[in-house]
Every structure is written in structure tokens, then in C-alpha cells.
């Protein structure tokens, strides 16, 4: 039986982070993962991450995954793939299925970082081919380059449903509607706005009542639900689709911890059955730690911090790290983790309805119901005296943990301050040069550059664009409003790509000045003649 100082189960963001920290302290570390490739779900995350620099904000998930793999390799972490841990026994022994053999391994400490599995909901026809999980959609399109379907309906408006809907459109699929039984959108408003401005309608307080089709999905029926989430007869709507995608939450995969005898609790706010852990991730059994989604559903950024914390704690537990060094490192990580745990989407705020931001500004009801800001909301969040020339309009109206825009502006026009959940403010004393760094760095694609004085009667609007085909300078197309409605003809006057923009292209369009505060997207086709 092979022995290590530390065994980590799960090679996702949390497990790899834990393994790296522990190996750097001198522990011999083995990581086991049932998948053929390490990285967990990171390599399917093609959007820019939120947070601040220390959380690797504005870097796309798959790039973070590549960095983690290099670090793990450099630290001497041994990774076993296609290795399913199926048992965890007394004295930190595990049973692993590798190929057709069952093997035993033993360590002095174990970190469980098995992540989570997707939830599903059932409805008539839900087992038909064509009904898939959101994770399946991401796997197919972002790892294997195949469209999950041509016309897709998404169920679930949390961040997963919103992000995957956008990614489906990036993969060339059509998203016909986004449906959620809840009365308001669960994920970040900025994610919702990205898809709303492409014209995707949101159906809140709706659910799927039937998947239609003889032997695979050809359509879907949704119905409005009442306050008790019961479908209301007579409210059915039909969509022709070939794919129904479910993004209805995640559940911790905590079975190994339960099996080992760790004290467990049922905590709906953390996603289900989770181990009781202390602030460093140690379970009720000394030397067994849990990190990442398995101890409470969050997202990859916090999973990586929790992983590092448990790796350091395991190192200290085994005497590879002095208590003093452990405490100083952990303090730093705790600060980083706490900064992610603030604001409207903090783990403790799940399900809470906010009427005001931390700054005391009334939130946008339209954003929560329909996925886009009403024009009347914008002035509440962009308060400054109009100066001539180009300037940013920041449509970021919720307290989410994110601040790359502040660092991106070389002229320091954008201020967030130390609390990264604070809303960005525009500093009028500094002059915008129109460089566009803020537009490209905003993970929520919520910053636009507007110049009302571009030409007499015309304004220019610079927007982030992550679709193909790219518009070309001189193209005539359609300006779209925040809810994807055509406003009229727009002319492309600049298209900028740069390495620093990281695949976000900055498209500048010319529109009548009356549309300066309403046009927020561009469609390559010219408007249809009425």
C-alpha cells in the first residue's frame, strides 16, 4: 500500500490549490480524480472571473486552470487520473478504482475536495434525449467543440444558467428563453443583461411543464407558477426547441465524508448535506479536511482560497508548518475570502431580496424581473455632470465582489475603493481618453464608452463584443436596446482587438444622439424595412 503525507480527493480548483500549498510546505501529496483530465470544471469556464487581482479577476477560468496545473507540476504534486475514490476508512486509508483494479492508499491527512453535482427538476418528458444539464452543455461546447443544440431553452436564472446561456450563444446556438420559477433573477444582473441585450426573453415565476417530442425533444411547454410554485392552468406557452438545459443548482458530493464518520449537517444555504468544519476546513475528525463546493456551494474563486487554507492547515497539522506561519498565511487568505463574501450575493444573503444597494441607491426592479436596466434606472447609478467628449457609462448596479475596472483605467477615472463589493464611481476630475481598458476588463460586460458629441446629431458607443463574426469598420447593422429590441441603423466606426483585451473585442458604433443612452448592443444584420 502506497503512503503519502497528504491525500487530496478531487483535482478541481479547490483540490489542486490545496495540493499546491501543501506540497510547497514539503509534504508528499497525491491527488486523485475520477476524470480523465484535471481541473474540475475550470476548463469549461470561458468567461472572465469576478473578484479582485488576488482572486485572479478578469482572467478566464480555463486560463486559471492552466496556471494551477503548472503550479501543481512545479510543486511536485502527483496526480492520479481516471482514479475513483470509492471508500474512506479509519486511519486515513482510501480505496481507489484505477482501471479495473481496486487499490489502497494511505496518508496522515486527507483533504476532500470532491465538489458538487448538478441538481435536476422533473417534468413530463424530462428523460427525453435533448433534456440536458447546464454542465453537459458547457462540456460539449467548451471542451469538445460541439453545439448542444440549435435552439435551447434554459431553466434556471442563477449565475450558471446565465453564464451558460451566454456561452451557448457564443457557440452559435439560439437561446429562445430563460425560465425560472423564482420571482426574481438569481444570478448577477450584469450576467442577465448580457443575454437580455441579445434579445433573450426572461420568464420569471415560470417553470417547465412539459418536454415535447416522440423520442427526443422537439418543443417545450412552460407555465406560470403561483406563490406556491404550482403551475397555473391556462398560462402555458410553447417554444420549438431541440434542447432543454437545466441549471437548477448544485449539491455537495459529501458522501466520502459521511462514510468516514465526519459530523454532517443539512444546510440548505450551503446546498444540502455538508460536513461540520472549522474556519480552516477541518472536519470533526482530526486530519480530515473539506474544501470547496463539498463543504458549501459557492464558486471557483472561493473554492481556490478554501483549498489553499486547507492545504496550509494540513501542513501545520502534520508539523510541516509552524503555527505562527500558518496563522499569518491563513489571515491573509481569510481577508481574501471575506472580501468575496460581502454584498448582495454573499453566501449568508441567499434568497434575500434587497431593495437598496450598500450605497443606499434603490435597486432596479426591471433588472431583477426582466434582466435589463430600465432607462430611468441608469441616472441613479451614473451621477455626474455631463462633460463633453468620450466617457464611461457603468451599468453595474449590484454589490458584487469585483473591481478590475478600477485597476484597468490608466487615468484613474473609476473608483471602487477597498471594499470590492462597492459600486464603481466615476471620478470627474480625471479625463477619460477612451482607451477602452475598462470596457474589456469588466467581467460583467457592463461598461460602455459613450460620446454624445461624436458628430453633430450622432453619438458613438463603444461596447464589448464576444461573438463571431466580428463586425468590420464601415459595416451597417442594427443598434439594439438593453432588451435586444432593434432601434435603427448603426454604423461601425471602430473595431479594436488587443492582447490585453483577452478576446473581448471593442466595437464602436455610430447612432443618432437620441440613442446614446439606449443603444447597448449591435446586430450584424441591417434593420428590416418596415
Amino acid at each position: 500500500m502506497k503512503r503519502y503525507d497528504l491525500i487530496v480527493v478531487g483535482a478541481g480548483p479547490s483540490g489542486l490549490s490545496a495540493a499546491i500549498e501543501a506540497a510547497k510546505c514539503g509534504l508528499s501529496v497525491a491527488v486523485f480524480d475520477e476524470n480523465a483530465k484535471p481541473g474540475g470544471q475550470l476548463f469549461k469556464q470561458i468567461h472572465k472571473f469576478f473578484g479582485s487581482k488576488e482572486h485572479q479577476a478578469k482572467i478566464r477560468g480555463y486560463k486559471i486552470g492552466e496556471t494551477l496545473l503548472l503550479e501543481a507540476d512545479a510543486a511536485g504534486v502527483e496526480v492520479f487520473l481516471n482514479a475513483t475514490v470509492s471508500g474512506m476508512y479509519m486511519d486515513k486509508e482510501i480505496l481507489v478504482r484505477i482501471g479495473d483494479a481496486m487499490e489502497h492508499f494511505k496518508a496522515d491527512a486527507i483533504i476532500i475536495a470532491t465538489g458538487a453535482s448538478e441538481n435536476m427538476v422533473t417534468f413530463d418528458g424530462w428523460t427525453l434525449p435533448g433534456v440536458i444539464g447546464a454542465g453537459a452543455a458547457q462540456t460539449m461546447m467548451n471542451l469538445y467543440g460541439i453545439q448542444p443544440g440549435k435552439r435551447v431553452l434554459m431553466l434556471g436564472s442563477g449565475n450558471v444558467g446565465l453564464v451558460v446561456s451566454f456561452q451557448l450563444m457564443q457557440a452559435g446556438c439560439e437561446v429562445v428563453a430563460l425560465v425560472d420559477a423564482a420571482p426574481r433573477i438569481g444570478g448577477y444582473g450584469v450576467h442577465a443583461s448580457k443575454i437580455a441585450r441579445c434579445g433573450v426573453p426572461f420568464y420569471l415565476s415560470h417553470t417547465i411543464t412539459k418536454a415535447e417530442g416522440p423520442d427526443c425533444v422537439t418543443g417545450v411547454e412552460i407555465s406560470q407558477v403561483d406563490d406556491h410554485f404550482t403551475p397555473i392552468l391556462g398560462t402555458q406557452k410553447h417554444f420549438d426547441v431541440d434542447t432543454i438545459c437545466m441549471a437548477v443548482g448544485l449539491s455537495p458530493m459529501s458522501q466520502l465524508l459521511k462514510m468516514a464518520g465526519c459530523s454532517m449537517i443539512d444546510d440548505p444555504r450551503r446546498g444540502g448535506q455538508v460536513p461540520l468544519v472549522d474556519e480552516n476546513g477541518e472536519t470533526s475528525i482530526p486530519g480530515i479536511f473539506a474544501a470547496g463546493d463539498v463543504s458549501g456551494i459557492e464558486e471557483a474563486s472561493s473554492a481556490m482560497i478554501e483549498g489553499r487554507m486547507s492545504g496550509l492547515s494540513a501542513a501545520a497539522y502534520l508539523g510541516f508548518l509552524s503555527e505562527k506561519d500558518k496563522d499569518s498565511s491563513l489571515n491573509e487568505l481569510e481577508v481574501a475570502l471575506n472580501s468575496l463574501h460581502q454584498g448582495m450575493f454573499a453566501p449568508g444573503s441567499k434568497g434575500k431580496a434587497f431593495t437598496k444597494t450598500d450605497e443606499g441607491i434603490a435597486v432596479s426592479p426591471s433588472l431583477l424581473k426582466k434582466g435589463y436596466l430600465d432607462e430611468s434606472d441608469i441616472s441613479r447609478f451614473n451621477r455626474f455632470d455631463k462633460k463633453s467628449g468620450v466617457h464611461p457609462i457603468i451599468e453595474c448596479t449590484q454589490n458584487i465582489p469585483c473591481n478590475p475596472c478600477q485597476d484597468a483605467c490608466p487615468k484613474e477615472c473609476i473608483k471602487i475603493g477597498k471594499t470590492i463589493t462597492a459600486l464603481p464611481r466615476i471620478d470627474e476630475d480625471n479625463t477619460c481618453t477612451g482607451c477602452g481598458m475598462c470596457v474589456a476588463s469588466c467581467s460583467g460586460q457592463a461598461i460602455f464608452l459613450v460620446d454624445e458629441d461624436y458628430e453633430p446629431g450622432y453619438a458613438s458607443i463603444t461596447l464589448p463584443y464576444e461573438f463571431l463574426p466580428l463586425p468590420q469598420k464601415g459595416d451597417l447593422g442594427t443598434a439594439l436596446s438593453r432588451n435586444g429590441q432593434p432601434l435603427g441603423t448603426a454604423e461601425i466606426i471602430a473595431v479594436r482587438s488587443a492582447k490585453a483585451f483577452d478576446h473581448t473585442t471593442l466595437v464602436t458604433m455610430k447612432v443618432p444622439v437620441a440613442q446614446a443612452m439606449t443603444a447597448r448592443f449591435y446586430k450584424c444584420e441591417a434593420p428590416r424595412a418596415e
Partner: protein
Amino acid sequence: MNRISAHPILGNIEKGQKVTFFMDGKLMEGYEGEPIAVALKASGVMIHRYTQKNHEPRGIFCAIGRCTDCVMIVDGVPNIRTCITPLVSGMMIQTQYGVTALEATE
């Protein structure tokens, strides 16, 4: 065609060598090393198996080897999770009826 030829973020997604395989005796093309399920999807196959009791169709659901909805008979072996099993040139893939490699009986 449902393969993504160009992606705004990922560019051109790298593929293995083009190979052929058989699906219920019919010759099909896919890329070596990609999951069998992806190659089948590219050829328009949606139904992977029929359930034992009610003879209901099943296809890809989770695509990460967890739900076992996509299992098929691969080279004579039943219950192979096609979403995580790499395609190999010349593979014989069959629709699975029930839980064994036996032919469906009426």
C-alpha cells in the same frame, strides 16, 4: 453541422485524427479521442439506449460520466458511458436495449 468551427474565445478547438466507426452497423466519422457521445452527436444520433421496462429512449444528460443515461454497447460490452469513453478507430457502437448486450426481445 453542429461542430463549432470557430469560437470567439476558444478559437479553433483542437481535434484528434479523423477516424471511422460503426453505429448499429452504419459507418460514421468522428475524431479520435473525443468522447463517443460527441462523435455520435455530430452525426445526429440522439438516442443511445432504451430502458428495460418501459422501452423509453435515453441520450446524453450530464456528459461527465455521472448519470449513466448515455450508456451503450461498445465493442460488445454493455453499459459503457459514452460521454467519457474516448472514440477509437473502428469501434462498434450499438444502441443498448435494457441493461445487457442482448438483442431486444419483443
